[in-house]
């Protein structure tokens, strides 16, 4: 008799290797850009050169005359709903009578090869009548061009503190800039339907919008999860999806499109730039009495997720702190700037930059240590959110985060004179005596999952096969390691090691929801856990066994059923998992708005050449509330990646706009941090039981981006003595008056 197998390998708490890692390392992993089909055509997009204009006429003839061009489509060719949109379908599939942002799609073409497609696109003559463009968010507010206004009032509005600090802050437009650009392939099925393989964070919502705009029945369209080179929010909205399907159905041929980098910058939504006005009032002991905030974000020309981003920004406008009295007014402005939408952090990043600057200023005004002030006002389990009044019933170890940051030893003072250790690097600008070191702290609070009464859920299926088990899901893997973690959850729940995760399309499984809002581990993970757990119980009950492992079903240490036989029995379980319900806001912004929360803190150490304004981010250390680290290595990966994006926003990343036109839509001038810009990171994972996620896990993707920018800014302030109310911080902000 064979001995019992031990606990499964590769379960929760371990860091098993990614199942797609070897393929990615060998260059054999299929991304959307790598797909092809027999007889495939290539598509290109004609875009508006104006921020706002009336379309007078479109002449397709010059393009159609080019050999190898198969189709040129405009708004008139959209078979179904002429608009699309993640929350509100207000964005034209193709502009009809007016273009409302620079880069707005006006027409699409399909041709034999990418070059011909681009030439055809360039040959299409569009006559515009330029109109005045609205490019200022404050002006939009005054003209009532808004997607949403949100008003939050909590506590006695007549309450005031004796120590008052006011400030105005600004956050520039960051871009997600995933390395993989937009790409897709649409294959007509010959029966009026189409299969879509495109970069996405949410195939079911793509499916909905494609079905609506193509005027098809849902079963006629299948959206397939496809390999994707990063997302960070840029892949939630539809961009080329409807265009590809239209062209495929029109030509009867598979159609592929890949955006080049410049077009990618234009072709997806960006992080909302924000203007924030704050007033913090405290009593003499440092207790926060009142926080007033005005939050203005520029949503650009179309709605995208501006409504939700604004809401998030307002709900998190106070941060992880208690306050007796709160007043927040938020504006999601509509302008003729390029549309903004989801980017990792989703509104919480922008307000954190402001409220953490305020907390430091307040500490200064009180003569208090900045961490002491935060400790005194820390929001924890059982407290009510200062903004919404929601009682925090999840573990929220804010005090532990602060304690951990304090306890982390500071690095030794810099002694090296090697250029690689100095600001300016190989530019040789700086000697050690030009450098001031600064340390800054910041805390951030983020919701996990969707909010405001969204019926958010995820479906997953677990099936037993003759080899082991398969987890089927439409949940998109963008690199974060979901595909690894779902396997781990199934292993631990089933008690077996041989588990694979398989992506299936929209026709074969219900929605897993979006890969965003740090929600997939909890939602799809929750569905997987429940499905695997139920399946195990059912199998054991059916065979009257007491143990299940890779060999099969056991009872009293005797193997009852071998796995190969079990695999033939057709066992499967499908679960749709929902989180505890949330509500929308009342007229004062009060409600059980969020599904879960996570808190994180960052401590940045920077060396600043104050005369030249050059910054070296030496370290960014962090303590993050993770619930339970299902895969510690993946969690660390999310933290280090998120922190560097926060560093990017702090010192180098911004889309520069002029009258609605992006001036730096290339990697030459939209600067992403290189390996030489990356700080060292020490990450302390704070685990506490009690969250509703699988095994108590919390989402970890966004918290690293919330307060890392604010911490770096605080450190630069400490080093330079400058106020620095805007990010990204430029050398001139530090060096000049």
């Amino acid at each position, binding site marked *: 008799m064979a001995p019992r197998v031990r606990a499964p390998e590769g379960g929760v708490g371990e860091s098993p290797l990614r199942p797609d890692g070897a393929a990615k390392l*060998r260059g054999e992993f299929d991304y959307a850009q790598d797909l092809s089909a027999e007889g495939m055509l290539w598509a290109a997009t004609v875009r508006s050169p104006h921020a706002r204009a009336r379309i007078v006429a479109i002449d397709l003839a010059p393009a159609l005359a080019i050999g190898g061009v198969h189709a040129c489509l405009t708004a008139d060719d959209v078979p179904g709903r002429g608009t699309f949109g993640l929350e509100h379908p207000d964005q034209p599939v193709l502009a009809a009578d007016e273009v409302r942002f620079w880069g707005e799609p006006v027409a699409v073409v399909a041709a034999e090869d990418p070059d011909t497609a681009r030439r055809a696109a360039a040959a299409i003559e569009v006559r515009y009548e330029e109109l005045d463009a609205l490019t200022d968010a404050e002006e939009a507010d005054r003209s009532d061009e808004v997607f949403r206004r949100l008003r939050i009032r909590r506590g006695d509005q007549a309450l005031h503190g004796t120590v008052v600090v006011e400030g105005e802050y600004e956050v520039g437009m960051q871009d997600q800039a995933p390395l*993989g650009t937009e790409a897709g392939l649409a294959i007509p099925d010959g029966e009026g339907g189409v299969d879509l393989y495109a970069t996405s964070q949410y195939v079911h919502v793509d499916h909905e919008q494609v079905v609506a705009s193509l005027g098809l029945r849902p079963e006629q369209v299948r959206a397939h999860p496809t390999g994707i080179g990063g997302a960070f929010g840029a892949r939630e909205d539809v961009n080329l999806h409807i265009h590809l399907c239209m062209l495929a159905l029109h030509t009867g041929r598979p159609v592929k499109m890949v955006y080049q980098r410049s077009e990618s910058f234009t072709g997806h939504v960006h992080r909302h730039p924000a203007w924030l006005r704050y007033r913090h009032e405290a009593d003499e002991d440092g207790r926060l009495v009142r926080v007033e905030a005005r939050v203005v974000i520029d949503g650009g020309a179309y709605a995208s997720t501006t409504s939700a981003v604004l809401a998030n920004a307002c709900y998190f406008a106070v941060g992880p702190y208690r306050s007796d009295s709160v007043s927040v007014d938020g504006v999601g402005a509509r302008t003729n700037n390029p549309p903004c939408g989801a980017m990792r952090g989703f509104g919480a990043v922008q307000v954190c930059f402001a409220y953490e600057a305020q907390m430091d200023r307040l500490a200064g005004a009180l003569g208090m240590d900045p961490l002491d002030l935060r400790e005194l006002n820390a929001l924890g389990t059982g407290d009510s959110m200062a903004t919404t009044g929601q009682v925090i019933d999840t573990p929220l170890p804010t005090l532990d985060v602060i304690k951990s940051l304090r306890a982390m030893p500071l690095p030794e003072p810099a002694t090296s004179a090697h250029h690689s250790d100095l600001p300016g690097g190989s530019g040789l600008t700086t000697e050690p005596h030009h450098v001031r070191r600064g340390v800054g702290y910041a805390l951030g609070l983020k919701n996990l999952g969707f909010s405001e009464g969204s019926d958010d859920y995820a479906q997953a299926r677990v099936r037993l096969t003759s080899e082991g088990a398969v987890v089927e899901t439409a949940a998109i893997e963008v690199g974060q390691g979901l595909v690894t973690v779902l396997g781990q959850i199934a292993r631990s729940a089933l008690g077996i090691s041989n588990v694979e995760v398989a992506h299936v399309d929209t026709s074969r499984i219900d929605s897993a929801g979006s890969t965003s809002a740090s929600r997939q581990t909890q939602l799809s993970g929750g569905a997987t856990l429940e499905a695997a757990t139920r399946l195990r119980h059912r199998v054991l009950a059916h065979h009257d066994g007491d143990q299940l492992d890779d060999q099969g079903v056991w009872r009293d240490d005797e193997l009852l059923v071998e796995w190969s036989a079990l695999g033939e029995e057709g066992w499967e379980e499908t679960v749709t998992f929902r989180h505890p319900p949330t509500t929308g806001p009342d007229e004062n912004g009060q409600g059980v708005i969020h599904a879960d929360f996570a808190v994180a803190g960052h401590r940045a150490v920077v060396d600043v050449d104050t005369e030249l304004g050059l910054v070296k981010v030496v370290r960014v250390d962090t303590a993050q509330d993770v619930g339970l680290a299902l895969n510690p290595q993946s969690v*660390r990966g999310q933290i280090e990646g998120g922190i560097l994006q926060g560093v990017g926003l702090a010192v180098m990343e911004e889309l520069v706009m002029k009258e609605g036109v992006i001036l730096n839509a290339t990697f030459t001038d939209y600067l992403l941090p290189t*390996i*030489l810009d990356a700080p060292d990171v020490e990450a302390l994972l704070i685990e506490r039981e009690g969250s509703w996620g699988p095994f108590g896990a919390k989402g970890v993707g966004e918290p690293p981006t919330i307060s890392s920018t604010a911490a770096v800014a605080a450190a630069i302030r400490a080093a330079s003595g400058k106020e620095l109310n805007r990010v990204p911080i430029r050398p001139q902000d530090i060096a000049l008056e």
Partner: protein
Amino acid sequence: MIVELTVNGEQVTARVTHPGSLLDLLRDDLGLLGSKNACEQGECGSCSVVLDGELVCSCLVMAADAANSSVTTVEGVSPEDGLHPVQEAMHRAGAVQCGFCTPGIVVAAVDLFARNPHPSGTEIKEALAGNICRCTGYGAIIRALEAVEIGAET
């Protein structure tokens, strides 16, 4: 136009639309999809290959200019089965997330170790300075490359 060159040790004849790049040739004509196009201006390194012994961005090499040259891509660095020590180290360290930058980093790292079998941390960073990663924050990549043990086969 027809271009003859050696790719991953094999003599090949490729057909390319002039004035396309070596990256276009590798991907579109030879079906070697490992090298990626993420910026088409040499600012991200995801198209990195070794051309005549030098690490370059294949998007910046005109295909016609690669005639009679020798090119090594990520496919050429990978062994028939399994992983090169650099790939193995990256796999174990969790240095792969979305993976779009990964082939370029593998090629750049293998090139580094070929020239310098025991690079310092600074040397690793300077060698990878032309490879952008948006997902990992580079921490795991650095840990991976610091842990690489190069055997006799490289």
